[in-house]
């Protein structure tokens, strides 16, 4: 939208106004349109249809039958849905702070001048661009309760009751969170690294002259300067965490039992496996409203702090 307002008339003519404004509007639209058409056909229209489908019963053929709030009543009483919702919140509650911390830590570590920094940055970014199926296969082997290196390592320290990881209802979710954090921290590290470049060195120097310790400088100089980046990262991370699907699908497929089934997977199950697209749309809408309300809250909080 910035294009529209930020294009002042370059030349003053005797007939300012209508024609020029129309031309500028037209140019503005031609900039936006290619992207907007794609967005509208592939995202906007389907999402609007989704809102409608959430109030219907539809099995993909014929017309969808309007059922009003029946799907939402069903959600209220669906204990599996409650468990799935809990699992999603569980994942988000741990994955967001862990990834945020790990990404920031890595960024600070790799923002120094040291030998081979480019190499280490690449290494940290590697998980993010690796095929998720390969990641799942390798981590599943590492987590193997009987033969996996992780449990063998833990065994060295004399732990007796070793976790079953992906085949235990208690430990499967922590296992998925660990892999999710490991996979995504590289990407967010990159964003933080970019943010760190914008922290003015003068401020650090001034703080040092004032006798601030490195921890004080981090707290009072680096963090406040990073706030726009942190905000962006938190929003992205939150949305990603709530709509986690691929990693869980390939690592545990929601199991054992339904201990790692999350909302997005439940949508997939109800829609594509059970052909209950109406109910699936209702679940998708819940996911949508969770994402959007968390994001709005974050925006408001950020705005308040900015004042």
């Amino acid at each position, binding site marked *: 939208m910035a294009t529209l307002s930020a294009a002042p008339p370059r030349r003053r003519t005797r007939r300012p106004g209508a024609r020029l404004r129309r031309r500028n509007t037209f140019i503005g639209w031609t900039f936006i349109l290619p992207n907007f058409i794609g967005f509208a*056909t592939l*995202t906007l*229209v*389907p*999402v609007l*249809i*989704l809102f409608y*489908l959430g109030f219907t019963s539809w*099995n*993909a*053929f*014929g017309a969808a039958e309007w059922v009003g709030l029946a799907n939402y009543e069903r959600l209220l*009483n*669906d*204990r*599996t849905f409650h468990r799935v919702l809990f699992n999603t919140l569980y994942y988000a509650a741990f994955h967001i702070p862990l990834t945020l911390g790990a990404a920031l830590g890595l960024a600070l570590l790799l923002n120094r001048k040291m030998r081979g920094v480019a190499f280490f940055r690449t290494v940290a970014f590697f998980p993010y661009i690796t095929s998720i199926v390969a990641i799942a*296969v390798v981590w*599943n*082997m590492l*987590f*193997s*309760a*009987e*033969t*996996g290196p992780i449990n063998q390592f833990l065994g060295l320290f004399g732990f007796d009751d070793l976790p*079953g990881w*992906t*085949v235990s*209802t208690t430990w499967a979710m922590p296992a998925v969170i660990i892999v999710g954090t490991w996979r995504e921290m590289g990407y967010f590290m990159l964003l933080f690294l970019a943010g760190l470049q914008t922290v003015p060195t003068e401020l650090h120097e001034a703080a040092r002259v004032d006798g601030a310790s490195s921890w004080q400088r981090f707290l009072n100089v680096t963090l406040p300067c990073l706030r726009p980046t942190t905000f962006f990262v938190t929003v*992205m991370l939150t*949305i*990603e965490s709530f*709509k986690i699907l691929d990693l869980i699908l390939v690592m545990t*497929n*929601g*199991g*054992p*039992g*339904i*201990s790692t089934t999350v909302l*997005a997977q439940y*949508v*997939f*199950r109800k*829609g*594509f*496996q*059970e*052909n*209950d*697209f109406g109910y*699936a*749309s209702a*679940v*998708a809408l819940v*996911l*949508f409203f969770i*994402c*959007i309300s968390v*994001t709005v809250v974050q925006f408001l909080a950020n705005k308040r702090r900015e004042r």
Partner: protein
Amino acid sequence: MKRKIMSTAAAIAAAALVLSACGGDSDDSGTTNGNGDASGGDDAAPVTITFAGWSLATTPEFETLVEAFEAENEDITVEIVEYADGDDYDTQMITDLAGGTAPDVYPLKNLNHFFTYQDGGQLVDVSDVAAELGEEVSGVDAYVIDGATYAVPYRQDAWFIYYNMDLFEAAGVDQPDGSWTWDDYADAAEALTEGLAGTETPATGAYQHSWQSTLQGFATAQSPGADFLSGDWEYFVPYYERVLEMQDNGSLVSYSTVTTNSLSYQAQFGTQQAAMTVMGSWYIATLLAEQDSGDADDFAWGIAPAPQYDSSTTDQPVTFGDPTGLGINSAVEGDELEAAKRFVAFAAGEQAGEALAGIGITPAASTEAVTEAFFNLEGMPMDDLSQFAFSTHDVRPENTVDANNAALQNILGDAHSSIMSGSESPQDGIDEAMRRASDEVNN
């Protein structure tokens, strides 16, 4: 883009449905020029029909069917439209059917989605074709809804025991004789594991793949009075208790190892890590091909009837397996409809059966000629028990044709992973599944 808050799976679904309306169209045979020349100077007007198939490079059965059919019916041309394999096939087919761009004839991979298609009014009533089929074609009943038949099977898989004769000999254990119950199977697995422990190839007695079918398919087919749709699933408990015991005494690789190490049944049996396994008939063709290419070891093997619930059914062993059928798109009419009916009738018959057997596929038509064609494949075991197992059995469908089938199977899938991983006892796991079935599905 990471920014799209709204890109949930359901949104993609709706997008696919919207867009399918402007997708490519291939079923309008009236505009297809050039095909008419192929049939030469026939009196009948040449007709072209389209036929869906998946992953043609690795699934030769569709081309085999079409070639055999065209050789007999010169006035009809069948064009194959390729689809992706797996769950994608049904998703794409549903999309194409809803958008009106689906082929004239399409395969029904399993009975679960058959219901979706039939219930959605996407299948032509082919009762007249089914009435003409002989006794030898099995699996037709699975496609009957309210007295009308909506598809015709061309392929009927069934589950057997695959066993490694060399390992049985090395362990000094008697080979299957066709009379095994599940307890005999478990005993043999234990004896094999002990017998092989000291040898150069310490294989486990048996291998059970992680699928819920490997246990639940048999339990539903064999247990007396089992009624899958009722959600009364007590009958699964003894099957689970037995298999957990087999895991505990080491005659099976544990479920957790199978899943965490992504073991494949082809590698486990093919490279002699296990002396026997229960698996579907499609594995015969795979095993032959892998022994030929060297991916599997060279050893003597055979198939035996699936273990039974008790000894009362050993004359006609009860096993399970869904038929694979062909349905006709309800949008087809006129000459194309007649041609499509001739094609599906042909696919179910003995002639197509022999052609399919020749490439290692188990056809729906089970006759002596078909069995002979099958056992003529290079590398096939020639013993009597293998032939008996292949030709004589009572196959019950794995899926029930019902709106609730998919939801119930999903609930049981959850129970399977939680019981097999040891997270819950068989009784607790099944109790929980039964509670969910009555709360969420059969309410």
